[in-house]
């Protein structure tokens, strides 16, 4: 087991820079998720940690030792690929034992370790099958087994669940997390799915266009997003952003072109009297028949557990997730209120959070 430190890592392919000075510290035994939209450089960063891509600049160290000049096999890490990359002509047991065989382990030792890993993953009945005889979920497990057998310092996962159906994905998500807690091995996990990131991570690294946008625990990112990108990326449905101006008394927000006054008693000092972006999560909007401001209903989407509303608030489009079942028609108005302590303020120019 080991901690992983990434210092100003850069990656260029020819003329294009894919990663710009990425720095992340990952504690020993932690579960770190790299998340971001497709093409932001998550896989590239993971592959640099693995040694499958060269490091154009900066430093990556594992267990306090720089690995910039180490071959993948000398880094003591194991990787699970998106396509699983199982060796097609080897059985499950051979797939799992391959790395041990290559370091010259004895047959009985390999068998013991493979069986142990198979037991953890429930693969015992499948050990003599070939990859083509397995379902997607089983292949996924074999790929994990191949990593576990080696007992490496670090596990790397690159979107391991994206080829599975939705139900299996939820199940494997929980299994991978439980397994990681049980083994205690430092894990770096790449996904574009913020739900996966939120549910699995000890620490999330949000990336965009080859830069780190924010690093933090899942709920920190949810509660205090550093900028509008993180704010809209984390959480589903996405956070609403309403353009407007904070009144000089710091207690009212005038929303949108219509300058609809919304009482928010706790506006931050930097925002007073300025044009800001008000961020409100859909689940933090409630119906308040006494103090609510009227909003025109555009769309009503009952999901069973919740009711999703799309409304116009002073001309701005706002999504709300209401816990209660309510019968509303398009075109009606509904009185909405925001909890002031759950509102976020962003600078419209820099998109940064105003504390």
């Amino acid at each position, binding site marked *: 087991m080991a901690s992983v430190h990434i210092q100003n890592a850069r990656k260029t392919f020819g003329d294009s820079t894919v990663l710009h000075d990425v720095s992340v510290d990952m504690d020993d035994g932690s579960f770190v998720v790299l998340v971001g939209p497709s093409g932001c450089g998550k896989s590239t960063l993971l592959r640099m940690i*693995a040694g*499958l891509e060269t490091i154009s600049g900066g430093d990556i160290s594992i267990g306090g030792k720089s690995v910039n000049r180490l071959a*993948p*096999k000398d880094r003591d*890490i*194991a*990787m699970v*690929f*998106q*396509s*699983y*990359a*199982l*060796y*097609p*002509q080897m059985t499950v047991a051979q797939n799992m034992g*391959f*790395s041990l065989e*290559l*370091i010259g382990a004895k047959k009985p030792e390999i068998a013991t370790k493979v069986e142990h890993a198979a037991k953890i993953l429930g693969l015992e009945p499948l050990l003599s099958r070939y*990859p*083509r005889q397995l379902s997607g979920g089983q292949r996924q497990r074999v790929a994990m087994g*191949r990593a576990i057998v*080696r007992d490496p310092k670090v596990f790397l996962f690159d979107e391991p669940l994206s080829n599975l159906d939705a139900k299996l994905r939820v199940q494997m998500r929980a299994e991978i997390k439980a397994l990681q807690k049980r083994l205690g091995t430092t894990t770096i996990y790449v996904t574009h799915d913020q739900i996966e990131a939120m549910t699995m991570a000890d620490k999330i690294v949000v990336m965009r266009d080859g830069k780190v946008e924010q690093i933090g625990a899942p709920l920190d990112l949810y509660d205090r997003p550093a900028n509008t990108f993180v704010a809209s990326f984390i959480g589903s449905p996405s956070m609403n952003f309403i353009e407007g101006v904070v009144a000089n008394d710091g207690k009212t927000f005038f929303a949108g072109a219509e300058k609809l006054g919304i009482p928010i008693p706790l506006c931050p000092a930097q925002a007073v009297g300025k044009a800001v972006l008000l961020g409100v999560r859909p689940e933090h909007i409630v119906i308040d028949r006494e103090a609510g401001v009227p909003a025109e209903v555009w769309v009503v989407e009952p999901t069973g557990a919740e009711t999703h509303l799309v409304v116009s608030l002073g001309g701005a489009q706002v999504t709300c997730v209401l816990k209660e079942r309510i019968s509303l028609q398009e075109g009606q108005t509904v009185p909405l209120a925001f909890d002031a302590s759950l509102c976020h303020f962003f600078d419209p120019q820099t998109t940064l959070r105003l504390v």
Partner: protein
Amino acid sequence: MTTMFSTAFRPLGSDRIDPFLVVLWIALIAIALIWVAPIIFIVFTSLKTNADVMGTGAFTPPPELFTQNYPDAWQRGNFATRFANSVIITLVKVPVGLMLSAMAAYALARITLKGKKLLLLLVLFGTMIPFQVMLAPLFTLVNSMGLLNTRLGLFLPYIAFGVPYQVFVLHGFFKEVPHELSEAALMDGASHFTIFRRIFLPISLPILAALLILDFVSTWNEFAMALVLLLDSKMWTLPLSLMVFQGEFGSEYGPLNAAIVTTVLPAVIVYLIFQRYFVGGLTSGAVKG
């Protein structure tokens, strides 16, 4: 038979006869007949006495089996020596050539290398030159190396002319092997050689088998280069000995055709052994991850 007809001419799941399928079958049978006719002629003739060859039709089965043509041909054609020559050349050249091709194809497909494209182009260029054009320069070259009438002198040009096509085919296949497969092996601690031997060779077995059959047959039957490079008849391979039959025993078709059957038989056996393997490999979905 009825079940064969009930499915052969109809699209799957339909009970109407598709005329196109009927045409396909007729074409298939016609082509098969064209190919099989000379073989039947050769086998029948090899089992006839000289009188029967003259007295009966080409496609008439031998009135009585006359097997003496075979020992005759063996002796007169000096097959003991020439068979051995052919076996040695083929058994060394085919596996060595195929391994060289596979290694070159792997390097071109997987190892980062400056000027790789140019190298590949050079190899592909080799597939485009008809070897007949090269016969005269080849003779000069082999002669200047002092290798005329030697096995090595034939072996080297055989390798040179066999490798480009195999590299072309194998490179095309290796290139399509998912990169993640090599990378997984790399992470598991495999060297390039291990990846080549343990991952690439096993998953390309069907293609290797196909190339092996093709190369075996073309090496075993090769005539022109052997004729130019082997002047001493002691070093001759089997196809060259057939030439002699035609000169010496022009009217004796029995021994000639027995010699042809003897020459072709090993290639057929090799084909039968490996084609099973190659068809089996393709249908078992070995390449799918």
